[in-house]
């Protein structure tokens, strides 16, 4: 059961960062959806709700998304979804229910870098950066490789490009966690392929379109191996991986 000794709504990021580093168990609470199901004691929970980080700003070259934006805000944002052919909406619409997505925040989802995350998989296929309060701006791909540190993810930036993409996933039942998820984008020369819920966190690779589909599948299997967990065996995931890749190639070629 989650226990919180002290709840603080901070006035600025500096205050949040100071409290965060005061005690190793202090935490930023995003939507608190997964956190609430954990068994832990938080000496001081930090809420960023008052910092105006809950909007999606469209700039000339990118969309800048505040960390306290809910998953639902991203799901229904028209111009953001137009940019990536509804990939973001497709990655979010099966996550539990509307009520859940009205609470879960994008900052919390990405900072945790959950293996089962659908949105991390989708965003990795796009050209995306994150802004961390202490470490500054880095690419999302680099961020996924970093160890968990005491920092605050303040914004997610999605660069405006001509994306042609697709998000696919397999679940045992609607609203369950994905057994495997996959996102693919295509430009003139390359495919960018991301596989998540392997069950490890999503990983991405770029491959030339000059390769045959079978060659690409072999490379993906080699570079992004699947493993077993309670949700599925490694063998089943590998079969799914192949099927999802073929489906994605077809979908992108049909467009």
């Amino acid at each position: 059961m989650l226990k919180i000794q002290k709840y603080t709504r901070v006035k600025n990021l500096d205050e949040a960062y100071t409290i965060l580093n005061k005690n190793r168990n202090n935490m930023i609470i995003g939507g608190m959806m997964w956190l609430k199901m954990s068994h832990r004691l938080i000496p001081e929970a930090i809420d960023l709700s008052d910092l105006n980080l809950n909007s999606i700003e469209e700039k000339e070259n990118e969309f800048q998304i505040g960390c306290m934006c809910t998953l639902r805000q991203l799901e229904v944002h028209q111009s953001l979804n137009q940019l990536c052919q509804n990939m973001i909406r497709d990655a979010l619409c099966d996550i539990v229910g509307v009520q859940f997505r009205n609470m879960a925040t994008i900052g919390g989802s990405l900072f945790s870098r959950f293996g089962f995350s659908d949105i991390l998989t989708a965003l990795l296929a796009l050209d995306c950066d994150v802004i961390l309060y202490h470490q500054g701006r880095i690419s999302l791909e680099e961020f996924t490789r970093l160890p968990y540190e005491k920092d605050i993810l303040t914004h997610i930036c999605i660069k405006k490009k001509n994306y042609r993409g697709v998000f696919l996933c397999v679940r045992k039942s609607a609203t369950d966690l994905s057994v495997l998820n996959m996102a693919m984008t295509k430009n003139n020369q390359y495919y960018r392929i991301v596989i998540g819920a392997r069950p490890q966190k999503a990983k991405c690779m770029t491959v030339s379109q000059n390769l045959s589909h079978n060659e690409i599948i072999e490379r993906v299997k080699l570079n992004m191996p699947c493993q077993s967990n309670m949700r599925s065996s490694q063998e089943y995931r590998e079969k799914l991986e192949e099927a999802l890749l073929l489906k994605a190639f077809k979908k992108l070629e049909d467009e």
Partner: protein
Amino acid sequence: MKVKIKVNGQLIIDDVKDDMLLLDFLRKHGFYSVKRGCETSNCGLCTVWMDEKPILSCSMLVLRAEGHQITTLEGIQNEAEEFAYFMAHEGAEQCGFCSPGLIMNVLAMTKELKNPTTDEINRYLAGNLCRCTGYMGQLRAIKKYLNRNGVTDDEIHQ
């Protein structure tokens, strides 16, 4: 910590623990339509509106809800009765435990989506589980409610 929160337009001031959940707060103050279900953010039984948007009160700290407008089923009796008429006529209420959460979410859906398709209804309500598995009855009731022209107020409230 002291909290001031507006529930159904009524200001409530109380002293609460920092980790008290909105669900517990609402039930403590007599809003018994808000049910405790799975407590894992999956079943939708504890659905209330925060600033007109459906959320799960089992996963919301009451301190976090301060400054927002909370609405429970008790605050929208007339709208709820209207939809409940269609649920009763379709035999969709069954044990009734999931009904308050479902009604809150159906009414939120009608504000957000115009003429939703069956697929859109199913997707919007995916977070409302019914342990009696009465989904087909619920779906019939929702569709009839959305096309309710011709049903008089007297019929609904009788």
